[in-house]
């Protein structure tokens, strides 16, 4: 409401006065003779930058580069085809998060398959999928699991519960990936010049801050684990600029109200119980990255869709003209892709970056690109 009402833990971090003050601090710290390239690793940050119009209040020499941390975006199309091939079976209920529903497979998205009559349902957590399995003993419920470390503990706990309760008509098609190898792949990429990282907030609630230490120590890049509200992100940029000014490279935690330095040990234990690293996994745009994804351990084989069903193992190359890989790595801005805004739009996405609200292309399309054509729109007329 315009006057007075507050949403706790949200509005405090959108306080206009504090935001203006922090933006002033950024302007004071940024050396006008220098160009800063900061990568926000997480898709949630990309979304927040556009949704809150943060670019408008940052000085021009601070460039934000969108990272690979959007789990829907990095999933190769073949995995979607694999998942949907299992859903062809009329006795299977295919479940996934809302984010997955519009991601295109070779023959359409899960939502389009649903319109053609397949039993495809949106769930809000893997435990909801397990609930469906309990309620539909005559059907097999498959959960299409995606996500970084943020969502992995809930998948692990759901599998542990399925085993403990002896629910046998439930399985998980595991597409979980891990963030650290992706950051390493970006840093290894020769066309990438970055000054510092805005570290992922929700992933870090699980893994903590230690796994980033090599970025500071070996690569000499500062990294600040950040929250998702405007003030969080601006404060993280202040912390990065201070380190850069002092010539330091450390891991810092801006998101202390949520992220413990050591992570969440109970969650990590559950993950270790259920998952093991895959030797390699294909990432859209980044190619095969070794030890970058999780599979379900053999002790849980009965609940692993890949072991229960025969998966075609489809590999699909992305359309040649689409430059998702370059955008994912931060080499190109979304609007610099040849297909952006013409062939590829949120309604008719070609790459997944245009689907998820955390994908940089969709965020850019929804919140930003038409602003480039405007002049003086922000000066009030009255």
């Amino acid at each position, binding site marked *: *409401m*315009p006057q007075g*009402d*507050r*949403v706790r833990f*949200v509005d405090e971090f*959108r306080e*206009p006065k504090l*935001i*203006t003050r922090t*933006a002033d601090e950024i302007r004071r710290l940024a050396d006008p003779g220098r160009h800063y390239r900061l990568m926000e690793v997480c898709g*949630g940050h990309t979304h927040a930058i*556009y*949704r*809150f*119009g*943060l*670019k*408008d*209040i940052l000085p021009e020499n601070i460039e934000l580069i969108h990272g690979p941390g959007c*789990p829907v975006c990095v999933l190769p199309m073949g995995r979607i085809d694999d998942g949907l091939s299992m859903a062809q079976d009329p006795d299977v209920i295919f479940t996934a*998060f*809302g*984010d997955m*529903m*519009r991601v295109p497979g070779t023959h359409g998205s899960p*939502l*389009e398959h*649903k*319109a*053609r009559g397949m039993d495809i349902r*949106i769930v*809000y957590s893997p435990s*909801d999928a397990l609930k469906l399995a309990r309620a539909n003993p005559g059907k097999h419920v498959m959960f299409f699991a*995606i*996500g970084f470390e*943020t*969502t992995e503990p809930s998948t692990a706990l759901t599998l542990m519960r399925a085993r403990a309760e002896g629910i046998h008509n439930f399985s998980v098609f595991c597409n979980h990936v891990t963030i650290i190898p992706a950051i390493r792949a970006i840093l290894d990429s020769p066309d990438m010049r970055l000054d510092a990282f805005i570290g992922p907030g*929700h992933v870090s609630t699980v893994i903590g801050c230690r796994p980033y230490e090599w970025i500071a120590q070996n690569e000499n890049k500062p990294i600040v684990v950040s929250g998702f509200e*405007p003030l969080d992100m601006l404060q993280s940029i202040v912390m990065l600029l201070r380190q850069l000014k002092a010539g330091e490279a450390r891991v810092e935690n801006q998101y202390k109200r949520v992220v413990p330095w050591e992570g969440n040990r109970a969650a990590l234990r559950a993950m270790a119980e259920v998952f093991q690293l895959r030797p390699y996994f294909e990432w859209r745009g980044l190619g095969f990255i070794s030890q970058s994804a999780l599979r379900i351990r053999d002790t849980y084989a009965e609940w692993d869709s890949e072991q229960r069903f025969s998966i075609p193992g489809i590999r699909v190359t992305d359309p040649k003209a689409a430059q998702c890989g370059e955008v994912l790595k931060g080499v190109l801005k979304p609007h610099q892709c040849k297909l952006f805004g013409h062939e590829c739009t*949120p*309604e008719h996405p070609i790459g997944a970056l245009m689907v*998820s*609200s*955390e994908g940089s292309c969709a965020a850019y*399309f*929804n*919140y*930003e*690109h*038409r*602003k480039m*054509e*405007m*002049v*003086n*729109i*922000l000066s009030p*007329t*009255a």
Partner: protein
Amino acid sequence: MTAEVASDRFSPVRFREAQIEMAHGAGGKASRRLIEGLFAPLLFGTSSEPLGDAAHLEINGARVAITTDSFVVKPLSFPGGSIGELAVNGTVNDLAVSGAKAEALVCTYVLEAGLPTAVLEAEVRAMAAAALKAGVRIAGGDTKVVEHGKADGMYISTTGIGCPLRNVRIDAASVQPGDKIFLSGPIGDPGITILLARGELDLEADLRSDTRSVLPLVEALVREAGPGIRWMRDPTRGGAATSLNELARDCGLGMVLFEDQVPVRDTVRGACELLGLDPLHIANEGQFLAVVSAEYSDAALNALRLAPGGEEAQIIGEVREQPAGAVLETTRYGGSRIVDMLVGDPLPRIC
């Protein structure tokens, strides 16, 4: 979906999608493509007129307004309302925001075999009560029954006929830079109430979806600021963002919203934060958007706020030359973002 009929000339069908998806009914971009690409060219001929909430026709010298709407709601009843009430108020409101007072409705019930009579009776009673309250007569109806498992219990379709109000003319083309954008009250309550009432989210909130006739508010507005009213719309599916984008395209001007002036209850805002939804995309009932000339804007705000149920009305933005054909929201600390139409159904995101 209504426009003047010009049946002697037909334009080509531009809708090229192979099958109908849920998104084509969600009120956003896909719906607009279906209507403009298939229905309008085949049914309304070359009509490139903006598609309003109701058609205003002249029949033997008498001006009448007509509109129709179907109601498919799951669950059938929710805190603060039910499908029967919605079916009356939705059509009354479509007429009201087109600048007409509903006089009579006819309704069609599509019932699922196995529907408990008590449920049907409750909805028919709800319709009767809503019609009495809105001052509209129910003049006729039709009933069809479909197989068990087919119609989520019941669908209701209502068609309304009304008299144009004097002293007001709704026309997107008359909107001009400097005009003010009004909202009659907080947005998002109905969409979030129904989402939570489905019980799939394990979220609870103290929210109601108070469906109501907006005619008294529209009449108050017309009485005090009639000549200044350029446009009104009932932002149901697709939310305020979609209605304002349609207006922006129809008049070729920019709609600039001020984030801190858009009334959204904190429970709705909280739910949207949790689910990753935008309140501007959430469906509404019982609220309307209006564009009023700057000259009449004080009178309009007073009229709305003094009318019962209009206390929370707000000027949420203004019309500018730029961004032409788009909606922009300025944030309270000087940032800005483009607000697009809803794409597909609003889907909650994971993290």
